[in-house]
């Protein structure tokens, strides 16, 4: 995008967060997923005539926890409304949600950029609502199946202000929200299961001009897709405008597999949802006491955790952000650091070797075959000189493949570093004796060249010891003897 420098990008997000309550927001049905269709569809979830909703108080508490975590205003009174539209997986013909009086008011989230900068993204509000069911289009011979297991699962929809100016901001913000809700324990955070879904509002403008017409790209369920979808839409809008066209206000759908997007509906064919307060539910009243109790019970939040990492482990702000971001990563890191007695090494391993491996095999840190305790053990062996960092990678690999604990692997595969200097000295002597030409060459060289030339001898020694020699010790011995 050679032209993008003349354009400013304005992004706002709407984020749906599935709350990890045991039961649904208005019925006693389980929120469990992955089971037989309609197993958890009660009379209420089916929208049976005569049934009535009763609000799940834990869902309200979870929304308030989120509000407290972003320092938002908590509404003492909030109101559920009906959003009316027809869809087969919307059993009542309306979604029960909040509009005029949401439970969580204005708040803010701070995001950390890779270059060390910080930004604040304001939250307009967050409201509670029920999820719809699922339409199943395969296996019904031209008909559509309806699975209402998900119908009525509690969601909070978090609506940001348009405070982001690019994909990097948006992804950092999305990750931060993920981090907050998983730290709070109010959401499982499994994006592949749709636990968090993002709608991205995007517009572009020339600097100094008023806001451009925005489009909404819906239902992005991974950070990677979000980043790509934003890049695609920004480029499209700039192309349209530079060709003298106009942006149409519309809802777009991004296909991650093909990296394409298409218009779903324009403003003209948008529904009139005819919101009005749900007469089956009373306004939700929250007392100061309840709010205070929830505030007192808040767990450590990502910002506090990050500050602690910087302070206690001396990590950079960016590294601290990465490690504190996901509660699972934070737990892993802290356990590994504890066990290995070295936070810096633990941080390097978690963000380096482990992250690469998890990424390559598309695994979550919670499913890592190398446990935090194993990584800690590996760090211990590195620190006490039992193994070199090169061997450590080999041990890590073996541990990943299920060959046992690092200690077992080191023992079984004889990977212990040579610490007997007498034995090493013999090998060094042998290498020198075997390479007279190189020895002469080395001795005739000046200091600068010698530093390079010694590498040959180190390599030979390491080869002879199958990498088990301590490279520092080898260097020292060679310098003495040569």
């Amino acid at each position, binding site marked *: 995008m050679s032209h993008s420098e003349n354009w400013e990008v304005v992004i706002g997000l709407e984020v749906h967060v599935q709350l990890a309550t045991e039961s649904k927001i208005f019925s006693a049905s389980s929120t469990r997923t992955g089971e037989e269709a309609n197993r958890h569809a009660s*009379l209420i979830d*089916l*929208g*049976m*005539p*005569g*049934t*009535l*909703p*009763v*609000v799940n108080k834990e869902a309200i508490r979870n929304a308030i926890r989120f509000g407290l975590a972003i320092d938002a205003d908590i509404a003492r009174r909030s109101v559920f409304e*009906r959003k*009316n539209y*027809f869809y*087969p997986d919307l*059993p*009542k*013909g*309306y979604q029960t949600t909040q509009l005029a009086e949401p439970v969580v008011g204005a708040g803010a989230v701070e995001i950390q950029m890779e270059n060390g900068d910080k930004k604040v993204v304001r939250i307009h509000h967050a409201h509670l609502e029920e999820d719809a069911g699922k339409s199943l289009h395969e296996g019904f011979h031209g008909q*559509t199946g*309806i699975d209402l297991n998900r119908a009525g699962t509690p969601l909070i929809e978090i609506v940001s202000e348009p405070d982001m100016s690019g994909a990097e901001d948006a992804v950092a913000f999305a990750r931060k929200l993920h981090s907050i809700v998983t730290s709070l324990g109010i959401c499982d955070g499994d994006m592949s299961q749709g636990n968090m879904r993002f709608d991205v509002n995007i517009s572009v403008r020339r600097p100094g001009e008023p806001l451009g017409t925005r489009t909404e790209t819906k239902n992005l369920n991974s950070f990677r897709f979000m980043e790509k979808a934003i890049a695609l839409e920004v480029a499209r809008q700039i192309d349209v405008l530079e060709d003298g066209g106009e942006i149409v206000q519309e809802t777009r759908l991004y296909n991650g597999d093909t990296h394409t997007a298409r218009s779903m509906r324009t403003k003209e064919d948008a529904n*009139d949802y*005819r*919101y*009005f307060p749900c*007469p*089956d*539910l*009373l306004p939700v009243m929250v007392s100061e006491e309840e709010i205070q109790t929830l505030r007192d019970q808040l767990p450590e939040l990502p910002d506090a955790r990050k500050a602690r990492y910087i302070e206690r482990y001396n990590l950079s702000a960016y590294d601290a952000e990465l490690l504190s971001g996901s509660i699972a990563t934070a737990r892993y890191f802290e356990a590994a650091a504890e066990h290995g007695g070295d936070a810096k090494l633990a941080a390097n391993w978690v963000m380096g070797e482990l992250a690469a491996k998890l990424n390559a095999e598309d695994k979550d840190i919670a499913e890592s075959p190398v446990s935090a305790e194993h990584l800690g053990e590996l760090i211990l062996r590195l620190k006490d000189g039992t193994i070199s960092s090169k061997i450590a990678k080999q041990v890590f690999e073996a541990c990943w493949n299920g060959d046992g604990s690092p200690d077992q692997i080191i023992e079984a595969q004889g990977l212990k570093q040579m610490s007997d200097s007498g034995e090493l000295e013999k090998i060094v002597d042998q290498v020198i004796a075997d390479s007279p030409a190189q020895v002469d060459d080395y001795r005739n060289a000046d200091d600068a060249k010698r530093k390079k030339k010694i590498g040959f001898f180190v390599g030979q020694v390491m080869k002879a010891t199958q990498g088990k020699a301590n490279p520092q010790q080898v260097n020292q011995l060679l310098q003495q003897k040569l």
Partner: protein
Amino acid sequence: MHDKTLTELKAGLQAGDFSSRELTEHFLARIKQHDGKLNSFISVTEAQALQQADAADQAIAAGDHRLLTGLPIAHKDIFCTEGVRTSCGSRMLDNFIAPYTATAVEKMAQQGAVMLGKTNMDEFAMGSSNETSFYGPVKNPWDTERVPGGSSGGAAASLAARLAPGATGTDTGGSIRQPAALNGVTGLKPTYGRVSRWGMIAFASSLDQAGPLGLSAADCALMLQAMAGHDAKDSTCLNEPVDDYLGALAQNVDGLKIGVPEEFFPDNLDGAIADNAREAMRELEKQGAKLVKLSLPSIKLSVPAYYVIAPAEASSNLSRFDGVRFGYRCEDPKDLEDLYKRSRSEGFGAEVKRRILVGTYALSAGYYDAYYKRAQKVRRLIRNDFARAFKEVDVIMGPTSPETAFKLGAKADDPVNMYMADVFTIAVNLAGLPALSMPSGFVNGLPAGTQVIGNYFQEGRILSVAHRYQMATDWHQQAPGDFA
């Protein structure tokens, strides 16, 4: 047996004068014999009724006497009853066998009631004449060329014709009180939130309230005693202790202050109707009550406010009838839109469609503030009017309906004229107050009713007023000649 009140039948069962089976068989036989002329039942649940009657007889034999043990009751077909068709008077639910039972029905069953069947009603309770039912109109037993009122027309007609000794109804804008008045029976709409709405198919959720219809205030007290109470399944059902309604009947009216709002006696009101209500109040005056003139200025706005709020809520409540999960589905839908359009066009009748359209319009973008929001403001004004009035008086009285039963079809083409039938009852629903209608004589040979409105949770008080009136009069004992 059928000329006795529920209270008398209860005593008869306890004394062993007859069994619940005999009683139930008697009413089932009467339904068979007479309901062809009235069409007051949509379903008669004979087998189930006899089973429940036998169980009641065993309970009685074992000394287990509950509030309603062995007493046959007819339920409005708006209440879900497990395993029994629950049609709500609509083609839409003609095939709907409810998979669960409404709390109000369940509570009566727990007190030993026997369900005779499900009574006819205006479709989805939308109507004041029982002519909008998919199952055809109900006839008024006092004159079968006339309507029984609505929407609980089947309930009121079956009672008046002595086909059932007790009945349930629902009242959104007068649907218990107006048919009670037109059939010469007693009907009570409790305080909003007094009886659970769980299992009662919603028309307008913020107004709907279930209540009893009986041959006397005492019968209504007996049934309400069983129906009322908190239900965790209905968030709008209030957690207030249930009063002793039967005990409350002992109160007299000495010193009772009866508010008489000028708005219930407008200049254009039929003089005979006005006189009838005034006569009823005079009877109470004789017993020591004091009449206090007052004004409820905002209730002039109650009909227009009601016809915004009720259709608005209905338009949303009836969205679930989409042909997807239950109820009527059109033949061979081409696609989803066709399925929706034809299922709803074919499944709903004209009045229901009219109200869905009105409600959809009232909630639409750009109209919401002008209609729905304003109607809610009017509602607050009406509530305030009543609150002011109840600082001065104990109950408020007036005619239940501006007219007696009209001819079938007389208002079929004039919905607005039909809506005026509820002009005296609607304000009570908007305010959420309890009110009853009691028979207060005849106008041109047709029953007329007088309404007694109480303050919140004052069901006991208004029942006692009606009971005192009924101790001094015999209007409530009159039965239509053809069905005596």
